[in-house]
């Protein structure tokens, strides 16, 4: 970085030490079959998958064991062959460690695949057929968002997509699984990209790779050389370059409106891992049963990238990979900037797990927070153009609507603000808290409004009923009075002229 750029350059984002090597320089290793896999039913955004196997049933690797339910959902598959031994709750790979529904499979150690249906020429399939196969393979966004990929493909068909952005930027420090995938399996990724292009109708694909991964850029350039619709675009290494909105601006110059989706500006973003999974699903007919993830951190004995069956316990992963050296201050699922702390190691890896980190206290560099000195570092670092210091001041004063007005909902929780904060204020925690509290308040308000509506409706109904009752009573009374009057009149008339009364009686007889 030149002096001028240092003083006058663009400032959003941060440049953390990437810690990617040496893990990034070792080839991907395949993890052997663990004794048991614990496959959660919800590894994606959307509705829980519904189990379609029973305890005691034998399953093959790649067999669907729970199917998608609802529009936004994804099936899950057995990640090895064996017997289903339990369907029930296990601790979630989440800081809370709260239970999640999962299917436990005791491995038979044979790792036998189910019969797969490869497609020789994917371009003979219609986009709808491709989306259907992608959905059936249980593919979700592997960059960490875990949004069902088929839904995104279908979305692409509805809105006019011009550009497919393939996200290989991998801006989180420590993680190198995408880097490694691009180096080792570039051809598969490019094949997957071409399938996605076909499925979305996009005309061009731009693969964004941060310039700190020259080997990956080279490998992808070679693999994409004969396809002129695919461009490999090195982007400056700057966190969070891998965030959708930032990468779209960097590669296309388009800004996604805050209330819109990328598809609305003609762009769709898929991760390189997702592209590879699409390739596996279409060309080989294999569903998503394993993924490449990075094991890294100062307390890890053998950092590297491993292809791990979905549902493997983090503990088993460590056992195979040489365990720990030194003391880990905390275990993280994901990268250090946005990852979450694991409650313990008895949790499974899931589709969205890009890495498991064992960080030492020195790496985490946690400290007691000091008061804010309004230095503005967080404002310069924020990739969304927010005012983190102002928002946190409002949140501290419990003025959540005030924080909301400042753009709290636009916060992507990337952590840049807290990373640069000289006072070590846990800004992201403030924002998580406020977002949760705001949506809770909103839900409460909706509930309140709907119960208010119900109460009003009830009062209205009661009032109407009593009114109707009163009216009916009045009517009946009027009728009675009228009848009485008529009877009286009739009696009077009868008294006056007796014979017609007989005639009336005879007339009154039914014919």
């Amino acid at each position: 970085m030149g002096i001028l750029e240092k003083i006058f350059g663009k400032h959003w984002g941060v440049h953390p030490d990437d810690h990617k090597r040496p893990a990034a320089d070792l080839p991907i290793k395949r993890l052997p079959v663990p004794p048991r896999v614990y496959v959660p039913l919800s590894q994606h955004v959307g509705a829980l998958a519904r189990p379609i196997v029973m305890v005691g049933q034998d399953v093959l690797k790649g067999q669907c064991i729970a199917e998608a339910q609802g529009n936004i959902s994804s099936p899950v598959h057995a990640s090895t062959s064996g017997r289903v031994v339990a369907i029930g709750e296990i601790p979630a790979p989440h800081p809370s460690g709260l239970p999640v529904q999962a299917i436990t499979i005791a491995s038979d150690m044979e790792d036998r695949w189910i019969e797969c249906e490869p497609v020789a020429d994917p371009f003979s399939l219609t986009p709808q057929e491709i989306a259907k196969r992608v959905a059936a393979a249980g593919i979700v966004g592997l960059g960490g968002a875990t949004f069902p990929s088929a839904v995104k493909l279908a979305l692409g068909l509805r809105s006019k997509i011009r550009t497919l952005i393939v996200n290989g930027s991998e801006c989180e420090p420590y993680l190198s699984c995408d880097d490694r995938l691009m180096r080792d399996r570039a051809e598969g990724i490019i094949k997957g990209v071409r399938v996605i292009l076909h499925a979305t109708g996009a005309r061009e694909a731009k693969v964004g790779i941060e310039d700190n991964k020259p080997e990956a850029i080279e490998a992808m350039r070679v693999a994409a050389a004969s396809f002129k619709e695919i461009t490999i675009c090195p982007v400056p290494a700057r966190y969070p370059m891998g965030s959708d909105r930032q990468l779209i601006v960097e590669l296309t110059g388009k800004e996604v409106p805050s209330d819109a989706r990328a598809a609305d500006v003609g762009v769709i973003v898929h991760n390189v891992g997702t592209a590879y999974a699409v390739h596996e699903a279409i060309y080989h007919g294999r569903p998503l049963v394993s993924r490449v993830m990075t094991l890294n951190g100062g307390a890890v004995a053998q950092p590297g990238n491993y292809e791990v069956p979905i549902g493997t316990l983090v503990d088993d992963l460590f056992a195979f990979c040489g365990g720990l050296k030194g003391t880990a201050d905390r275990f993280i699922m994901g990268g250090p900037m946005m990852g979450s702390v694991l409650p313990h190691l008895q949790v499974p890896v899931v589709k969205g797990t890009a890495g498991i980190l064992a960080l030492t206290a020195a790496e985490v560099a946690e400290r007691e927070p000091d008061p804010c000195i309004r230095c503005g570092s967080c404002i310069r670092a924020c990739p969304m153009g927010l005012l983190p210091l102002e928002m946190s001041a409002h949140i501290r004063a419990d003025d959540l609507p005030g924080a909301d007005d400042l753009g709290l909902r636009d916060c992507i929780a990337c952590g840049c603000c807290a990373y640069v904060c000289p006072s070590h204020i846990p800004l992201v925690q403030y924002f998580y808290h406020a977002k949760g509290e705001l949506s809770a308040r909103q839900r409460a308000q909706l509930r309140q409004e709907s119960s208010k509506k119900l109460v009003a409706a009830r009062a209205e109904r009661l009032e109407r009923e009593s009114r109707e009752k009163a009216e009916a009573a009045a009517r009946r009374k009027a009728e009675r009075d009228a009848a009485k009057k008529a009877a009286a009149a009739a009696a009077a008339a009868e008294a006056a002229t007796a014979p017609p009364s007989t005639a009336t009686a005879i007339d009154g007889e039914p014919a």
Partner: protein
Amino acid sequence: MTTSALSETLVLPSPHAHGGSSVSRAMTRVQLALLPATLFGFWMFGWPGINIFVITIGSCLAAELLCQRLMQVRSSLGDGSAILTGWLLALSLPPWAPWWIGVLGGLIAIILGKQVFGGIGQNLFNPAMVARVALLVSFPVVMTQWVVPQPINTPSAPGFVDSLRITLSSPAVPDAIASASLLGHTKTEASRGIDLLHSLAAANAPAPSWAGLRAGSLGESASLLLLGGGLFLLLTGVITWHIPVAVLAGIALPALIGHAANPAHYLSAGVHLLSGASILGAFFIATDYVTSPNTTLGQLIFGFFVGLLTWIIRTWGGYPEGMAFAVLLMNAMTPVIDRFVKPRILGRTRAGKPLDIPEEKEA
């Protein structure tokens, strides 16, 4: 999993990494940046300057310690902010100022300028400037008693023992070494009806100089050294260019126009930039994090008006130097600027509305 373990893991929010910056690191860098100009001031004005420097900082530290004891909060002496406040105040004092100026200044800066607002990060006004203005308004004679530079290695410079006498008993400054700053000289002459062309040409007129060998405050005059310190702060990312450039532009632009129109009445931009607290103020005082706006556009507005007000006060005001007043006035405007100047959020207009979804061109 037990509840206690649950709450224990929940208080570990992301990110799980930190860039390594800290309040004390920023303060240390600012002090480092001030060091050359400070040492130059020590050399130029000798032992009395060193005395007042030590006394002022000591007073600030004592005041900070006292307040935090009384309020029973965690001591923040280690963050270096109280030292920096005292340092900046000392640099803006006359080098031969008596001891009680330093003590009183330190107490005003820390107690009235900072702690009554709630301590670091809470104050509305720059503490060092609050103290300087309070002293200047209360003790105008003592606060404008400038001396001719007598470098510490020259025979006429006061020795250490003499310096103690100067600082502790504050005798009248002998006429032989009393001097006026350039701004003070021209202001006095102008009030006697002598215009700039004549007052600057007079034999006793101080000359502006980049090196800073001129009468003035302890640490304001070495413009080049201060500029170097400022560049160091820019390069290490402690400050950004917006406020310093805007302040200097705010002084220089009206000075250029005025001087071009009537050189007999308006000092040149060069004289303005090299006099008084221009450089110190632009890089070290107006850039105070706590009391300046937090957006770049806000900082440009803030800085420009600090400069402009400085020029206005120097040109038409009752005081020869206006930087401290200008900074305080704009400190008061900072919340207003921050209220109305906000950065544009990605995907939104400046007004905060979502951007329009672009129309498909071929459709």
